[in-house]
């Protein structure tokens, strides 16, 4: 139970990471997040199964394509709407819907749309049998987080990301182009999203509804954790992950969503800015 809760939490955290990073840096709430997730999965599937490319190559191609779509979306649409928060939300949301529903039109549904696991089999972790794929997810999650930390704290680009996140006017005055950084952040967010999709999707099938599901889950995680903070995302995903597992074990599997919703509403009542949302608190929330 503990082990499964842990894995569940890591999966949630990975899902939410791309959303949180994009929002934290450029302030664009990318509501097309779920669509990018599914798109990443479906592109990999396309290259892998239809075109018969090797797994590694098709994964990289899918990540790059989704990243490019994110950048294009920013370059051609969102740039005209900067500052109009509502318009940004509506535009990204509409793009997400376009992608997801187009996939539905092309008939992405059913059992054949599934990615094979990297390695079959299972291993014994603290007395529970866990599929290798899940272990890979956890390992990749930890590596990803560490790499991200290094990137944000010890590279020039990462530091300029943080600069823009804190105050874009000041960032501009020390020679950082907030516009470029925003494009990068959106690209990075969508690439992360596609990468995570490739990691997680072998556990189930690729379906359009999963896209909306992922968006909901990442939003819930980000709201509980505080939108801009990465550590908040992790804590929140552990809360939600364990709450889900506990309700599934002791009450009923069908009530997991109720538990998550209740969890979110209670935390909002106690601490409206989320658990770790100190940053910009006065500015954004009351």
């Amino acid at each position, binding site marked *: 139970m503990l082990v499964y809760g842990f894995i569940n939490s890591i999966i949630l955290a990975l899902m939410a990471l791309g959303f949180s990073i994009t929002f934290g840096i450029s302030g664009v709430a990318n509501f097309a997040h779920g669509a990018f997730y599914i798109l990443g999965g479906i592109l990999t599937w396309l290259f892998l199964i239809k075109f018969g490319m090797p797994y590694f190559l098709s994964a990289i191609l899918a990540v790059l394509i989704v990243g490019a779509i994110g950048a294009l979306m920013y370059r051609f649409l969102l740039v005209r709407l900067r500052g109009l928060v509502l318009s940004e939300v*509506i535009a990204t949301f509409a793009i997400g819907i376009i992608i997801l529903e187009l996939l539905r039109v092309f008939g992405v549904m059913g059992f054949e749309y599934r990615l094979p696991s990297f390695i079959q089999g299972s291993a014994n972790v603290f007395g529970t049998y866990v599929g290798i794929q899940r272990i890979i997810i956890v390992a990749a999650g930890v590596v990803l987080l560490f790499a991200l930390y290094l990137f944000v704290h010890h590279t020039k680009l990462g530091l300029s990301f943080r600069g823009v996140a804190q105050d874009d006017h000041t960032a501009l005055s020390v020679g950082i182009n907030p516009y470029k950084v925003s494009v990068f952040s959106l690209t990075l967010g969508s690439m992360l999203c596609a990468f995570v999709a490739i990691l997680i999707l072998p556990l189930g099938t690729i379906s359009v509804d999963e896209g909306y599901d992922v968006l909901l889950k990442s939003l819930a995680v980000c709201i509980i954790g505080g939108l801009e903070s990465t550590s908040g995302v992790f804590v929140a995903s552990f809360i939600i992950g364990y709450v889900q597992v506990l309700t599934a074990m002791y009450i009923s599997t*069908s009530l997991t969503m109720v538990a998550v919703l209740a969890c979110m509403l209670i935390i909002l009542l106690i601490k409206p800015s989320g658990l770790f949302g100190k940053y910009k608190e006065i500015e954004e929330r009351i």
Partner: protein
Amino acid sequence: MSIERRKERIDRCIKAYTDDIFCLSSVREISYLMLPRVLPIALILLLVFFVPLYWKKVMVITFVMSIMAISWDFLASCGLISLGHALFFAMGAYVAGALNYYLGLPVYLTIPIATFTGGAISTMLVFPALRLRGIYFAMVTLIIPLMLMRVVEATKIIGGTEGISALSPLPGLEFGIGISMVAMWVTLFSLRRLITSDYGLIFVALMDNDRAVEASGLNILWFKVQAIFIGSTICAFCGAFMTHYYMSVGMSAFALDLSIFPVAATVVGGMGTLAGPLLGAMVLGPLSEALRGLGTFRVVIYAALLVVFIVGLPEGLFHYLRRKYEQIERWVER
């Protein structure tokens, strides 16, 4: 060498004095003011009588959707951008359905009761999110109805996946058309009145600068609760009405389309005018009905239209038309 030109906009002189002087002296002035108000009412009234039966039903749905859109715009002008209007709709729908099915109350009781209890329940559900604003509020409202849909699906309360059907119908289609049309105009004009009154000024101020409102010694949370209650009550009426119109209520009341339609109508029609969303709904309602044959592809067209409008004509149709009506435009040398 080309001469640089710019577009000059001048108010029509008739606008200048009909705006300021309250004593209108000629038929021309009165008709200038009344035409944009009376013409749509008359046109729609005429249209209802002369379209075939199928399109009459479409009209009812369009009316209800435009009420939802007006309510969305009202909440948006209070700074409460909701991406989950389906929640309010569903609360009204389910309360009406449950009252009718389990208690056997007649239509003329269920709709009023559902309107107010539905509004109250949705206000309570949204309450935790009311301390947030802008995009944060939007995110939470997007989540709530979709999660509640899962709850209904999972726990099988109030009908579960199948919903409740075999509810008592409205007395006749004409009755339905009449009620929905009157409700639409009443909502539009009373909300316009409300928002320009002293009381409504607080709501608008909530969007512009809520800390200034707080500094004036007003409890913003309480005023937000009132705004949400007004907005959700209007939507709950739509839900209750549609429940009896379809004679059933199901999980589709929580569906994403119901949340998106008001947003789309407002974006197309023009934000912050209350009349704009109505115009938008009048365009989008029949359009989405005409596209029904395309199946899921309809939603794609819909969302694409949304993107085009928000990037290409962000002010919306209503602002554009109003400018054409009230101002003379001409090109002059710079």
